[in-house]
């Protein structure tokens, strides 16, 4: 009797320039949730991608249900072996319908003709079972991201997988949806399925997890029953050192008034927003998903059209109609979606950092001064301790935390006065988060005004000097850090204009 449904022994995998996995052992049992934990770049995703046939291992052996896997796994053979994976990045075909996506690659057909009706009915049954209210005929591209995530889960389950891998499944979900997901996970567990769960949100673990495996720098560190290990222990094993202070706070007295925003309105999600920011101050913007925080940062930076409002910088009114205006004034944005909006992922780190600073780097004939560029990149990357082989690698090849640092680096190389971060720590690990906090503190000490949005309340409370709370496109409250508590913030964050509209807001999020 095989006790483990998955046994991976001494798995190694190298990519050009990096040894992603170094003789890693991993195993999972039926009817249990195994959490796979580690920092960014620890090799968790690589490991599960090998198990699901996306990557091919260099060496090591894999046993699934006690049977040795001979040769390489492909996505198809892994699926036939009972393995399904929900990827971190959404992997749906936006033009196809929900049912078409669920059955992609294993369509049902009678002879040559696809049995659309049969696939529709089966999709419907799966979605109903998971209590997901989506019509299988909906085109996936029309769904909100969180709903797409649910479809992805339905797709994985439709194969009747015995082993289900979830790579950061909750990063795009609201707390209500996370609850629903956990209910599904418990149900699957009860059915005897094995679940491999990767998440950075350690606070989620206690709801569902039975076992934990910790990885670090491509190596196996330890495996333990969840109840036998403390959270501090988990974290210190993940980072290989004790993190004494998860939220390092630096005190410095705020300087003069830097940025004043008055009655800013831009569309339905930014309504009559007013706030101020001093030099050397960190202001956190809290709120639920869909509260309009991202939209507010976009309007401020000139990405979206503003209907009305006044922006003053150091007391002087300024007009920001496009991002270039904001950059010229020294107001910069590190957007939420790093890969989509923050970086040119096909360009090298060096080119990304140089991009917004070309006016400093170029001589009169618009020729880039390579020496100046190299010096700027050197300084920026050293300051932020960006981990990479060299500055000429593609930005896409870096881990999430390091990508975030490159985004910041490209702005800091110029002379920015106000730095706006939209969800700066989304999807990055504990240690990288602390580095981002340190970075924000560093900016603060240099007399830069820092505005950041965050969905994680401990983060807002831990790092901000002042808290703004948004709900439904409006600022519903402002709290000095001394008075801010989770309860107070939550109370302000749910202060909807009226109940009905509020509910619609949450639905859309």
């Amino acid at each position, binding site marked *: 009797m095989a006790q483990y449904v998955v046994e991976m022994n001494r798995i190694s995998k190298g990519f050009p320039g990096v040894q992603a996995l170094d003789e890693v052992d991993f195993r999972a049992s039926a009817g249990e949730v195994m959490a796979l934990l580690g920092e960014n770049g620890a090799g968790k995703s690589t490991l599960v991608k090998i198990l699901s046939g*996306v990557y091919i291992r260099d060496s090591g052996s894999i046993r699934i249900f006690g049977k040795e896997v001979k040769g390489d796994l*492909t*996505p*198809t053979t892994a*699926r036939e072996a009972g393995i399904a*994976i929900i*990827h971190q990045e959404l*992997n*749906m*075909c*936006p*033009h*196809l*319908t929900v049912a*078409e*996506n669920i059955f*992609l*690659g*294993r*369509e049902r*057909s009678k002879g*040559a*003709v*696809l049995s659309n*009706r049969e696939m*529709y*009915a089966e999709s*419907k049954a799966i979605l*109903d079972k998971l209590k997901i209210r989506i*019509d299988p*005929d909906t*085109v996936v591209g*029309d769904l*909100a991201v969180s709903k797409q995530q649910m479809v992805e889960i339905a797709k994985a389950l439709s194969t009747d997988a015995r082993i289900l891998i979830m790579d950061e499944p909750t990063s795009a979900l609201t707390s209500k949806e996370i609850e629903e997901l956990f209910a599904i996970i418990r149900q699957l567990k009860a059915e005897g399925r094995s679940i491999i769960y990767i998440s950075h949100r350690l606070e989620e673990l206690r709801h569902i997890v039975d076992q934990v495996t910790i990885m670090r720098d491509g190596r196996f560190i330890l495996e333990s029953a969840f109840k036998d290990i403390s959270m501090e222990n988990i974290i210190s094993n993940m980072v290989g050192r004790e993190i004494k202070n998860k939220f390092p706070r630096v005190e410095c007295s705020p300087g003069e008034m830097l940025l004043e925003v008055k009655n800013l309105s831009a569309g339905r999600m930014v309504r009559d927003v007013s706030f101020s920011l001093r030099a050397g101050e960190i202001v956190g913007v809290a709120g639920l998903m869909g509260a309009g925080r991202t939209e507010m940062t976009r309007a401020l930076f000139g990405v979206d059209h503003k209907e009305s409002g006044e922006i003053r910088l150091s007391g002087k009114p300024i007009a920001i109609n496009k991002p270039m205006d904001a950059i010229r004034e020294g107001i910069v944005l590190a957007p939420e979606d790093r890969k989509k909006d923050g970086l040119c992922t096909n360009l090298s780190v060096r080119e990304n950092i140089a991009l917004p600073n070309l006016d400093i780097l170029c001589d009169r004939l618009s020729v880039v001064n390579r020496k100046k560029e190299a010096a700027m990149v050197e300084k920026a990357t050293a300051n932020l301790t960006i981990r990479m082989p060299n500055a000429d690698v593609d930005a896409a090849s870096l881990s999430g935390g390091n990508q975030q640092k490159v985004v910041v680096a490209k702005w800091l190389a110029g002379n920015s006065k106000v730095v706006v971060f939209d969800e700066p720590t989304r999807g990055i690990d504990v240690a990288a988060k602390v580095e981002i906090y340190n970075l924000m503190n560093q900016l603060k000490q240099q007399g830069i005004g820092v505005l950041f949005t965050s969905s994680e309340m401990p983060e807002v409370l831990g790092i901000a000097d002042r808290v703004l709370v948004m709900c439904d496109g409006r600022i519903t409250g402002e709290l000095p850090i001394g008075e801010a508590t989770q309860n107070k913030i939550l109370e302000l964050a749910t202060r909807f204009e009226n109940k009905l509209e509020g509910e619609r807001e949450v639905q859309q999020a």
Partner: protein
Amino acid sequence: MEKQATKRANPFRRLMAIRGMGQVVTVGAGLLVLCAVFGVINENFVSKANVTNLLRQIAPILLIGIAQSFVLITGNIDLSIGSVVGMSTMIAATLMSRGILGPVPAILVTLLCCLVVGVTNGFLVAQCKLPPFIATLGTMTIARGIAQIVNNNYNTDSIMKFYPESAQTFKDLLYYGKTLGVYNGILIAVVLWVVFNFILSKTRTGRHIYAVGSNIEAARLSGVNITTTTIKAYAISAFCSCVVGLITCATVGQGTMDAGNGYELYAVAASVIGGVSTLGGQGILLGTVIGAAVWGVLQNGLQFAGAPVALRNIVVGVIVVLSVLMDVVVRKGHKKKKA
């Protein structure tokens, strides 16, 4: 409630919701307006003789439009279409006019040669990961070179020279003859349209073609064979182009080296006007019919209205840009609505 939930939305609404049906309807309406305008300008435009003539002009454009649509939906492009048409004409005509092979074996050899080009295109794009623009630009030049070299850089003699009877049958079968009162050239296009529309909308291959164009990584991770699917699309493209080349050969009665010149762009025009997205994943062959018809009506109608060739080119070009622009604007509006 459960029962009601399993009932699907009615087919018409589903059709309207999926894959750019909106543009097909809009452009279809535009086509009717266009026909009405040309009819008013010159009433001969709507005469029976001209309508037949028009349909015979549209048929090959529809076929190369189908060719390009398959490739565009996978998110690629095929620039070799026009050259494959020329190559097909020249190979078939050379074989027949020199008495090397009769029409039937000549057709088979020609098909084989064209499919080699199609498979090569697909292989270069999917397996060797060449940008489709560059890969098919290369095969476009090569295929045109082959079209020139097969008969030592001359147009061929008449295909009737060695096979007066069977070549006449070949000409009738592909272009001049009629079946059930309809010219064969038109019928071939209709039959192939039905076949390929079936493949695209009802079969696994068709579904995979959409998936590859929509999100190649998602398709790969779902177990869709990207290389095979891409090769199939390019092979279908080459097949349709080959048929157009054979029809051209039958029409002219000899092989001309510059046959099919510029067809790849007409094919893009027919696809794009009909709502096939150049970004992949979107489009239906019904749209390609309408796109090809718009192209044909513009060419023919402007000719009737007395416009010079150069002006016709400009008008078609403007229409292509406008229809892509419309697609982009509609999509932008859609996104805004969602946000």
